């Protein structure tokens, strides 16, 4: 038993000190082996240490959620044409002011609405493409054309991770989104920074579960493997790759042990489960995803992405905007619960929660009751991690058709996320094919105004 095993056996089975365990293990790295996942300092002290990135697939309507436009209903009623052209489709969801800030949002997300004082709502988002596939890549990678590393990959490339027994960048997505796994791909960044997609099924990560029929057998295998590898290493000195591979088995074993603990919700109280709107024993639904995200954050995972639905039966409400209702219901309470839970545990102050989608939806109708794609103006929000709560940034015109004030391009959104984590987005670069690439390409401005 080396120290590592000692550390593990001390804390294994105890859910009291998950973060401590991770920390102890993270600090141990083999001498001479540069662990790309070791925690790294950013350019300056950031206000956030970790990120939960919530992405709604299909294009969630801004005018039906966080950017209410009563004028649309008025114009629809009166059959008037919008200034600037086109018909209007009013939102089925009425809106009213909420919280101390009095920010007006619709009833589509009644629980999130109660959290507005914690949110910084950006009403002037703008993307570069009006089609799902490209826009989905855009909000994740900054590029709507050629494939680039995902925002989660950039963040983990910059910061490493706090818990070597868990993947640094976890994606909880029951279905594949548009553009598939490219969405969380590290692309030209080293593969360790790729998102690891976890499912709620019996094997959350491929090959996580022990396949050897008894536990002792696997331990014996790992122990003989280490002895043979050490012998081989003595005959081949001075090669960090061999050492890294020996270490990787320790980490894998740690992961095999730690991951089920992260996913074991049995010690969560009824009150907590209720907060997320999830039932004991259920691993279905967004409540489970949000609760697991919180547990990941506690244990030092750097970046968790939550995707609610896949590339079909999603927010793409061409036929009828009412299809937003069940989708919203599925995520509303879980997200509100997540915010409340993070807050009560003191995690929200250094955890940045981002809530976004690939584009908004047209203020005018498509067919009778549907809305088309709309990348010229839409809404997202940020919470925690050093952004102001209870504020609105940017403004659209009275129909939600045009950005009227303070455009926040996807690059600006990304630049701001990186800033909260302590990065100058122009300096977080990677040399590839003769050029220094970055998340924000050659653009992006930090939205200083929303920083707390």
């Amino acid at each position: 038993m080396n120290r590592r095993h000692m550390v593990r056996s001390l804390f294994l089975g105890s859910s009291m000190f998950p973060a401590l365990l991770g920390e102890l293990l993270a600090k141990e790295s083999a001498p001479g082996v540069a662990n790309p996942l070791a925690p790294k300092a950013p350019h300056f002290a950031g206000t956030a240490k970790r990120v939960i990135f919530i992405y709604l697939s299909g294009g969630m309507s801004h005018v039906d959620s966080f950017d209410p436009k009563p004028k649309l209903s008025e114009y629809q009623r009166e059959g008037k044409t919008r200034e600037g052209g086109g018909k209007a489709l009013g939102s089925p969801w009425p809106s009213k002011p909420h919280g101390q800030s009095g920010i007006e949002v619709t009833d589509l997300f009644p629980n999130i609405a109660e959290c507005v004082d914690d949110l910084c709502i950006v009403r002037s988002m703008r993307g570069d493409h009006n089609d799902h596939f490209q826009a989905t890549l855009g909000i994740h990678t900054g590029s709507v054309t050629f494939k680039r590393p995902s925002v989660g990959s950039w963040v983990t490339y910059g910061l490493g991770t706090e818990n070597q027994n868990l993947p640094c960048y976890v994606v909880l997505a029951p279905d594949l989104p548009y553009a598939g796994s490219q969405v969380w791909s590290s692309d030209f960044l080293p593969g360790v920074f790729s998102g690891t997609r976890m499912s709620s099924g019996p094997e959350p990560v491929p090959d996580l579960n022990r396949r050897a029929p008894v536990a002792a057998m696997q331990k014996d295998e790992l122990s003989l493997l280490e002895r043979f590898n050490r012998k081989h290493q003595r005959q081949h000195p001075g090669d960090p790759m061999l050492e890294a591979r020996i270490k990787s088995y320790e980490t894998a074993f740690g992961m095999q042990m730690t991951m089920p603990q992260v996913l074991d919700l049995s010690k969560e109280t009824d009150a907590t489960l209720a907060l997320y709107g999830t039932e004991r024993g259920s691993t279905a639904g967004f409540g489970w995803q949000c609760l697991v995200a919180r547990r990941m954050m506690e244990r030092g995972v750097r970046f968790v992405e939550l995707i609610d639905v896949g590339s079909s039966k999603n927010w793409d409400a061409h036929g009828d905007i009412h299809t937003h209702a069940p989708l919203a219901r599925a995520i509303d309470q879980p997200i509100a619960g997540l915010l409340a839970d993070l807050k009560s545990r003191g995690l929200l102050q250094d955890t940045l929660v981002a809530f976004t989608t690939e584009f908004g939806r047209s203020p005018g109708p498509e067919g009778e009751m549907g809305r088309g794609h709309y990348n010229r103006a839409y809404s997202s929000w940020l919470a925690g991690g050093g952004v102001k709560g209870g504020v609105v940034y940017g403004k659209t015109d009275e129909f939600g058709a045009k950005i009227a004030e303070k455009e926040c391009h996807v690059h600006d959104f990304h630049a701001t996320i990186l800033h909260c984590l302590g990065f100058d987005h122009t300096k977080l670069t990677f040399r590839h094919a003769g050029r220094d690439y970055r998340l924000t390409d050659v653009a992006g401005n930090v939205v200083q105004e929303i920083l707390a």
Partner: protein
Amino acid sequence: MRRIGGILLFAAVLNAQNAPSPEGVAFFEKHIRPLLADNCYGCHSAKLAKPMSGLLLDSKAGMLRGGSSGSSAIVPGKPDESLIIGAVRGTGNLKMPPGKKLEPQEIENLVEWIRMGAPDPRTEGAALPISSYDWEKARQHWAFHPVQDPQPPRAPAEWDRSAIDEFIKAKLDEKKLIPQPHASKLALIRRATYDLIGLPPTPEEVDAFLKDTSPKAFEKVVDRLLASQQYGERWGRHWLDVVRYADTAGDNADFPVPSMYRYRNWVIAAFNSDKPYDEFVREQIAGDILASRDDMASKNIEQWQQDLIATGYLANARRFGSRAAEFHLTIDDIIDNLGKGILGLTVGCARCHDHKFDPIPTTDYYGLYGIFKSTRYAHAGTEIYPHTYGFAALNPDKANELKYYEIELSGLDNRIEDIKAGRIKFATLEERRKAEQENQQRLKKLSAEYPYLLKAYAVSEGKPADARILVRGEPQTLGPAAPRGFLTVLGGQKLPPEEKGSGRLELAGWLTDLKNPLTARVMVNRIWLGHFGQGIVATPDDFGTRGEAPSNPELLDWLASRFLESGWSVKKMHRLIMLSRTYQMASGDHPQNALKDPKNIYLWRFNRRRLDAEEIRDSLLAVSGNLDPAPGGQQPFPPEMGWKYTQHKPFVGAEGDYDTNQRSVYLMQQRIRRQPFLDLFDGSDPNAETGVRPVTTTALQALYTMNDPFFHRQAESVVGRVMAQATDAERMRYAFRLLYGRAPAADEARESRQFLDRVRHDLEGSTVAEDQRNRQAWASLMRVLLSSNEFLTLD
């Protein structure tokens, strides 16, 4: 230079002959100069240290020359073709001035002024040479020099057998590095076998080599490996990395391309037959044109088919979007790939502006762009236009039949889309419905009778025309046309005016011209990289100024000269390299060397490496006896007429990605979803040129060998082979020989025996049936041996 010079000259002529009229000057002074000064000079003046985009609007020459986009800001007399007008109108993506819109009257004045011929009295401020290059200096860069044939330096005994060794030894001496001794024969045969065929040597092959004490022993091994079918399966894969091979198109619905495999197999066959590299390149760029000459279809049908299939290189470029509107990105992908892959230049960087580091102006980029725009590409299907067309019929008799179905089916796609989009008008809704129904019915009928003819995902000649520059790479903003031609820094030849084709044939000729200094250098560097794990130029896709300089430039040129001299023979290059002392060095450590040259740039030892993804999987299959050596054919995609893929429900390979026991090069590779195993072990990216695969070591890889069902199955199959031996001692010996090519050492045998006892003990009282426990224990031992660094790394 020529073009830019031309424009400067043009400006000068304009000055001399057409001195602006007094009215024109008055108009300029009254309306235009103040407008430019107030709105533009802030960013676009020669007085600034770094004018934006290199564009100068405070001089006549500057306006005519334009900025780094390569297009002039104004075209006198033609306001609609003048970039500045589009920018101030804000019609495209380029909107100027930033955050402000000019008054309508101001815009009108600008239009009027350009219509008048842009009379401009300004004589000051000649345009700075920002978007042009100092060509004299640019050509000094090593990679643009002609390939030399340097004399190898003299070297002491043991290092004087090959010029490679002489070059390497001289460099080692210069850097005071001590080379490693010869590798052991076991290490050598493992190294050579993996390097050339990507598989482990069998115990018999190891024995034969160890017993063979003749001086030609190793040469015989190399020749045997070069002659095997497996050689192409490994080296073809290297090339498939470069050309970002995939079995799907990469559009929003990621349509499958069942006939793509023909190109993959063509590449494998080309390596196996040692097709000269210049032919190899020519056929991929212009195979269809080569095939169309001399009535080849009737003379040599197979050759004709192969030439068409070869253009799968171009057809396999990535597709974008759901329709066809984003095809410019596909052409960009082609140029990017051709630049990096064949020339070792990041030509793609000149798409939106002149290359910032290498002498590649945007006009050069669009000179190539025109060639590829004058080409027709097979359409693999997209969400809106799901039916395929433009494929090459491989049976000339059936070409018309294929064309008939392609035209009919894709025509129906168009009509249905036009009806849906309201582009075809109907008097009544009923009529519209009827028309739609008729079209759908016709589609159904054609689908039912569709003959699945032999075809290839290929390209053909399109309408030849020069392309207009897409300013900043955006198709909405068109600049002037760029004459089709090749890179200025490498000659800059333009297509002759009488050229009737796209220019691909000329491009292929230019690429493989013996005087082209890059093509041969880039390829020998790739071959070297395939053996040593690093190139003489460490950035194999970038020989430009931002790439690494060669660690041994004389050696690189000497190799390139031999390559050309041998008639571009790749196999001869392997022999040359592998028979050197340098290749046969041990991979051991040397602390002093490691301090001086930690990255082993000068090759004081052989680079130990982890097996790559394909090697790992193929080795597991090989030692388990499960490897199916048959070449792979078409992927078992659903039949074409049933395809209804959309971005909402894209094509996703069936569970297990059509798992097979054939070699990994034949695994289905999808663009929007990486093959999980290959992804896990750093396989190449099917979306982007991969010159060097990064190697990572992760816990998820360790979990794979601990728990993956495929891995466990192979270990169990190894047990099947091992148990055929009579005694435990023989079994142990057999297993070590099978996996490592050597017998177990005494302590290893002892530890293994103790391990078996322990595991049998572990299994007592378990659910594993008693008569299975011994076998399970052996499987457990095999997993250990298969997970070990000795199995997974190569000395």
